[in-house]
């Protein structure tokens, strides 16, 4: 199997899985219980939090465990908006955010907030200047993703954070779901107040995630109840998932140090190969992009058809973001980047993990060279 859909979801590391199984079957206490089973699980929870805090160089009380990236983004954005409503009602985000940000902002518009959606250039990046220009009296939140989920384009979040340090009233949220363990982000010094992570994107388990909440930042919770996670996120903690998340985070960061150059080289190689082919347009900016995502529009062929043909050859890729790929329309991200053209409807995404190498890429290219001309030929005959 050649799995090139790691931006949609990754396979958990065996070590993370092992940890998950041990905790799930052996320590089944509820961390909020008083008894010994409870205190052992409480200890594991604390350890997991500490290990993540050490890597990110943040405090343990700045981590809130969630059920994933979608919840993290919602908690950050709705949480700030409702907690700071008395100070203003303006929010700034970008046109290329993940649906869990865009849909949340659209909901807030219905609730009386005003949202500015910043445009991107042909490389798929927002400009620092556009953020500065959009900030105004009454702006309470800026939410910008670090790495785009479809193109891999890196947004200038550290620069934005630096600039927002001088706007005390504005909270800054970064959706780091695709960037985590792939593109470094200095949480401590970059002026970021809130930052979303999702476990299943870095070889942890689905249903796990975390939100960094800088000490002192006030949020309204989404989910009320037993008061877990410092009252920010109630519900019995998914302890096995959390411990596995911490493990996967550590391993994934280690793999980054080891393999980031190889991965970036692989990306460049694939881009150069694809570029040579007629009607192939690379949507991933070669320089300012993550090492693991490549997006290419292949004019004249519908991405679903390519995906199905590839999957028959046991090569698994996707179009757009997984969350919306069941809708048959253009990618919102590519429309923002190139306008409503054929290019926005024909994007394919290949996404790597740290084990991806040439032995995955060569068969992909070979398969495309067989599939694409065939589809184009059939189309010609039909029309």
């Amino acid at each position, binding site marked *: 199997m050649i799995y090139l859909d790691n931006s949609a979801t990754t396979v958990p590391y065996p070590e993370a899985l092992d940890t998950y199984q041990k905790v799930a079957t052996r320590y089944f206490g509820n961390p909020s219980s008083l008894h010994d089973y409870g205190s052992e699980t409480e200890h594991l929870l604390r350890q997991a939090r500490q290990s993540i805090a050490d890597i990110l160089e943040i405090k343990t009380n700045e981590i809130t465990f969630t059920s994933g990236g979608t919840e993290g983004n919602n908690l950050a954005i709705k949480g700030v908006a409702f907690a700071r409503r008395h100070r203003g009602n303006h929010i700034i985000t970008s046109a290329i955010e993940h649906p869990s940000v865009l849909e949340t902002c659209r909901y807030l518009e219905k609730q009386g907030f005003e949202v500015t959606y910043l445009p991107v250039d042909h490389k798929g990046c927002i400009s620092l200047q556009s953020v500065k220009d959009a900030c105004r009296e009454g702006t309470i939140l800026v939410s910008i993703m670090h790495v785009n989920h479809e193109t891999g384009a890196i947004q200038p979040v550290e620069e934005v954070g630096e600039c927002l340090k001088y706007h005390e009233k504005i909270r800054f949220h970064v959706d780091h779901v695709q960037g985590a363990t792939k593109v470094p982000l200095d949480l401590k010094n970059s002026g970021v107040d809130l930052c979303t992570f999702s476990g299943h994107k870095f070889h942890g388990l689905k249903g796990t995630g975390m939100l960094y909440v800088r000490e002192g930042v006030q949020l309204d919770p989404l989910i009320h109840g037993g008061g877990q996670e410092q009252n920010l996120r*109630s519900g019995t903690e998914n302890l096995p998932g959390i411990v596995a998340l911490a493990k996967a985070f550590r391993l994934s960061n280690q793999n980054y140090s080891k393999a980031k150059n190889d991965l970036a080289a692989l990306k460049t190689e694939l881009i150069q190969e694809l570029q040579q082919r007629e009607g192939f347009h690379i949507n991933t900016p070669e320089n300012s992009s993550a090492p693991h995502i490549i997006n290419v529009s292949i004019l004249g062929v519908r991405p679903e058809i390519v995906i199905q043909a590839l999957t028959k050859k046991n090569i698994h890729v996707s179009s757009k973001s997984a969350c919306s790929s069941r809708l048959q329309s253009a990618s919102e991200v590519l429309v923002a980047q190139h306008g409503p053209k054929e290019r926005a409807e024909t994007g394919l995404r290949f996404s790597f993990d740290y084990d991806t190498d040439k032995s995955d890429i060569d068969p992909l290219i070979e398969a495309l060279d067989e599939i694409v001309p065939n589809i184009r030929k059939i189309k010609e005959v039909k029309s």
Partner: protein
Amino acid sequence: MTGIYLDHAATTPVRPEVWERMKPYLDGTFPGNPSSIHRYGRQARQAVDAARVAVAESIGASSEEIVFTSGGTESDNLAITGAARARRHEGNHVISTKTEHHAVLHACAQLEREGFEVTYLPVTADGIVRLESLLDALREDTILVTVMHGNNETGAIQPIADIGDQLREHGAFFHTDAVQSFGTLSVDVAELNVDLLTGSAHKINGPKGAGFLYVKKDTTLHPLVFGGEQERRLRPGTENVPAIVGFGEAVQLLQKEKEERAQACKRFIHRLLTALDAEKVPYEMNGSQEQKLPHIINVHFPGTQTEPLLAQLDLEGVAVSSGSACTAGSFQPSHVLAAMYGENDPRIRSSIRISVGYGNNEAQMDETAKQIAKITKKQRKVLGQK
């Protein structure tokens, strides 16, 4: 871990069969995201759908009526805040009870902050809500009633079917938190006359991180979380495929064994109480003993104090609790017992909850009774001298 685990109402061990079913969705055999359209994506989608059918069948619902969430707390919040916000234009009044789980109580408190009015129905000393008090509280502008099925601290079973029957003509949405009852009672949405019903996987020997909300057809809710297209937009976010698959398996095991499990729980409890009698331990049962879940008892040991009692039992390897786990962590006296007996009743400070389930056996009950006898005796002596 050795020891005797009698806190199954807080959380339960994952059954090995459940783990075996989950494994291929974790170890890379089936790696996909259900929203991806390649083969592995489709396999993941099918696995989620199969679990949905299993859950739906277990409560007599159709599979489009099941929304998977991260757990019981989220389902309660989605049901309560989601229903109230969706019906705000129709009314402003919500009814709940004083003995709900904090997931329900605090969701209701959030609604109060948003300007809704919430009536919390009292219970009688048996822990049960009277139908008349519900009828008294019901108003024209009542848009939602939420009453739990089985209580997590005492096991008291509320008259859900009767309440649902009364509400049918009124038109208020009716939600029940069935997190505790799902494992040992028959739960059928048509018999219970509910529009919304909460369940949680880790209370029925499934994994943590999965729950469901039954949303009856044509019941409109506002989502808590916005994003992709998952769960008919009521609960976006990449589906927790392995946990959902595990939940499905746990439900299927449950359906086969429910009656058997309930009988086993009754046997364990009976054995424990018989042993306590034999040891001549003074105790009283809290709440109704007739209308009660088979796996939970709440017991008053006169002349003792809850916290040292729990701590001593823990040292001897017996894990019990004082009520809901979430209450326990914060050392507050139980709001459930307070609602039953009043704030000042001594029972509130000298009662414990014992809950049995998978992995327990008769010998453990005898051992527990022996430990309770020893510890309560010592405590009565020490506290009596003060």
